[in-house]
């Protein structure tokens, strides 16, 4: 089983105790999928007024805006749950509004570990694409 090395733990922070298995925190960037990155970016740099509010629907709209396609609600909420379980985001309940039938809003905030993971994901992608011209052409 993989373990947390001193270097990777200091780079990426501690592993959340609720996470059901020990994983190599040094590989966190590889574990951050495109969709998880989109959700984290939506929390860090919202481009829409609604997106700045940082609750579920606002994040969904922000991700749709960035990806330029519609996204199912289930994808957003399951991703947020997963990110929260990894300790990359935190959430708290806020007051509801009449249009929501008084139901509370769950506001999300990115955590330092989330920022580190996002930066690491970007670094990994940049390294991967270094020296490759776009568009990529196949070998005939």
């Amino acid at each position, binding site marked *: 089983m993989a373990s947390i090395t001193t270097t990777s733990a200091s780079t990426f922070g501690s592993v959340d105790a609720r996470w059901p298995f020990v994983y190599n925190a040094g590989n966190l960037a590889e574990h951050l999928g495109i969709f998880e990155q989109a959700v984290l970016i939506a929390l860090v740099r919202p481009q829409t*007024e609604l997106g700045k509010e940082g609750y579920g629907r606002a994040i969904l709209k922000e991700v749709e805006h960035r990806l330029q396609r519609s996204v199912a*609600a*289930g994808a957003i909420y399951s991703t947020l*749950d997963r990110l929260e379980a990894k300790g990359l985001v935190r959430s708290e309940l806020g007051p509801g509004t009449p249009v*929501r039938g008084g139901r509370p809003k769950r506001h999300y905030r990115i955590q330092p570990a989330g920022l580190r993971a996002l930066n690491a994901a970007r670094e990994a992608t940049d390294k991967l694409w270094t020296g490759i011209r776009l568009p990529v052409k196949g070998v005939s």
Partner: protein
Amino acid sequence: MRDHRPIIGDLIEEYREVVRPARGPTRAALWFVGQLLSLVRPWMWGVLLGMALGTLNLVSALVAPLAEDDPPGVLALAAVVLGSWIVIGFVAARRRRDISDSVRAGVIAAVLTTGIFSAANLLRKVLFLDVIRHRSDWQGLLLRFEASGSPDLKSFVVTEHLHGLIGGLLFSILIGAVCGAIGGAVGVRPRGVRDRRAESVQ
């Protein structure tokens, strides 16, 4: 247990502020149901389908234990199950537009459906053994039992069932993957831009 009120609140807010004005009540209602369905995880669908089929099997054994299987009925039931796994693959693909999600969802749902249905079927065999052993499609099993020298029919039936279950689960993995891939192939296709224009971010 996670509090679902914020999620429902988000959906109601979107429904009232954007979707209903843009799409009208009928299509907005379909949108709402679709969003709710997207919240249900593949394993939950598998469990629900397995429980529904298992219950149907037990009830039919209770009502008419000696009734012969109706081939068109069995085919229709199989079509419903395969169709459900395809829909599960489709819904999974809609989440992230990733066909691997669909294949995984199809396999999870198929294994759980098969496992739970098989457990219910085993229960049916144990509970109604004295009656259903007289069914015509059980005579081959009874001949195998007599040839085996096994002292107890119930133990023999359970053992045969469990041996069959291993193959059944392996087969369900294959079929679930295929069904998930079929649903996923449809689900990963991009949606039209018409509604996106109407529902642009406020």
